């Protein structure tokens, strides 16, 4: 029981790191980015190549995966995404689905369609005993890393100048622009960091989530659930939503494996009907 809870929390933390970039881009630029999972997949594959083929240490590869994906995110943001901000949601959806299709086929072409596994160092395998519960070392690492990232994000958002600019831009873009905040730069940076975090999550999660070319399609719905249930006005909302989703999914697979994703999708629809703005959102001024 406690092991399920623990695994669920690890899974939820992972989902949060994967999806938090998406929630900010949605809140900030009103951009529906279904291709977010593609960045996570990129991070995962970067790690696979670095660790398995080039022998780079695991943790160093994870950090490299973050920067590589962030760079890719910044590049795509400046060259492609910039053109679709002003377009309708329908066109954003089409555009990002197109990107997903391309990413899936490209990865299939380069890396093959079979599932990839990252060689995790010996020190991180196995279980240790914490207060009488068997705890996977790797999952513990995930909780620690993701917990630190969450704290850092929260601090950056609340205490730094950039954070207050970002919050101002999310709340009211036009007024923020009027106050002299360069919203475009704020957004480019946020997009890059968000993509980088997705890449980091993909790198860490390759072991738990499984890594194959259809990753972006398989987890798209999870990211969207986190964002829609959590709301886009803060990072605590998506965080709580991720944890709930993680625990719910792990518990569902453990206790009622036959139901599959049924429980989660139903809950999502119920939440959206009950509170279309998300469970944890505060009422907006507009």
């Amino acid at each position, binding site marked *: 029981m406690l092991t399920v809870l623990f695994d669920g929390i690890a899974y939820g933390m992972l989902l949060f790191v994967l999806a938090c970039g998406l929630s900010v881009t949605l809140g900030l630029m009103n951009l529906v980015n279904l291709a977010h999972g593609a960045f996570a997949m990129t991070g995962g594959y970067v790690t696979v190549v670095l660790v398995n083929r080039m022998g780079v240490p695991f943790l160093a590869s994870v950090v490299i995966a973050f920067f590589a994906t962030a760079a890719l995110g910044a590049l795509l943001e400046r060259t492609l995404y910039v053109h679709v901000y002003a377009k309708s949601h329908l066109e954003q959806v*089409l*555009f990002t689905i*197109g990107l997903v299709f391309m990413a*899936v086929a490209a990865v299939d*072409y380069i890396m093959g369609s079979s599932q990839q596994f990252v060689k995790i160092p010996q020190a991180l395998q196995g279980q240790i005993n914490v207060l009488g519960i068997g705890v996977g070392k790797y999952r513990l690492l995930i909780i620690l890393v993701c917990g630190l990232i969450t704290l850092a994000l929260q601090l950056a958002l609340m205490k730094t100048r950039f954070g207050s600019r970002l919050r101002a831009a999310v709340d009211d873009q036009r007024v923020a622009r009027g106050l002299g905040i360069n919203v475009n730069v704020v957004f480019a940076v946020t997009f890059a960091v968000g993509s980088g975090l997705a890449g980091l999550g993909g790198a860490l999660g390759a072991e738990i989530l499984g890594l194959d070319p259809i990753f972006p399609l398989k987890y798209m719905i999870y990211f*969207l659930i986190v964002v829609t249930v959590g709301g886009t006005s803060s990072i605590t909302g998506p965080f709580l939503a991720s944890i709930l989703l993680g625990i719910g999914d792990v518990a569902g697979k453990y206790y009622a494996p036959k*139901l599959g994703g049924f429980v989660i999708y139903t809950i999502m629809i119920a939440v959206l009907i009950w509170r279309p703005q998300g469970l944890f959102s505060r009422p907006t001024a507009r």
Partner: protein
Amino acid sequence: MPGMLASDVAQRLARPSRWTPLEIVFWLVALASIWLLPNKHLILTEIAILALFALSLDLILGYAGIISLGHAAFFGFGGYAAGLMAKHALVTEPVLALVLAGLAAAMLGFATSFLVLRGSDLTRLMVTLGVSLVLREIANRYSDLTGGADGLQGITMAPVLGMFKFDLFGHTAYVYSLVVLFLLFVVARRIVNSPFGLSLRSIKGNALRASAIGIPVDRRSIAIYTVAAFYAGVSGALLTQTTAFTSLDVFSFDRSADLLLVLIIGGVGYLYGGLIGAVVFKLMQDWLANITPQYWQFWLGLVLVVIVLVGRERMGRWGAPIRALGGRFAKR
């Protein structure tokens, strides 16, 4: 327009409902394909089914402005309904089964329309996607009934109307699909050119103003969503009947996403868009799959990205001369 007489207005509104020569040529070509391309009937059947499915999405997206990422839900529901009716010999006559499958999907559409009406575009995307995923999970869960991941096997189709047997080369299947497509197209054409259809367009334009001039926005949206679900259910049932097989694949996200691409290629909010899009999409898919059997999705994705970046309006302008030509024919 000031100074316009009521009769002028009526005439202007009635004009789109008249059949133009270009439309008649379009359907004559479709009819001629039965005899001219006898060895292409298998892919032509797929095109006809996809066209009907695209028509269905166009009714809600192009006319009522309801965006959906899970239209495959109704397609799959109709497909399984038709498959189960045929397999367990509940309703053996295909045409009757087709109508029943469509009605079943319409009931599902009516029930879920209340979920879809709430919230913004994003919520709608999520809810429609969620509904199709839930259905897929249910179909997977009750594998005794649906065959689960292996698909629904052992369907034997009775002859259409008790007279025309389904053959191996797909001749019957194509004629059958084409007739169904044509009949439902005519109905859709009536719907969108009726006052009801005009009210849908005004809802798409501005829901608030539409309600201010007395249009019951919610009721109209529910109605068209239900009708569109019927169309999607019929197209799914057609696929099951013509291939004597159905699988979980009918609910897949790719199907809903491809459908959006079909509609974008052909043009939204104009019934022929779905039909032309289906032809172009299938030919393109077939062509790409021949060149790169495994990676054709990449090029499909590229097409989507380019279409959005170039902009549909600009592409629409490239298509304008053809439409102008059609208009000139119409005036004569």
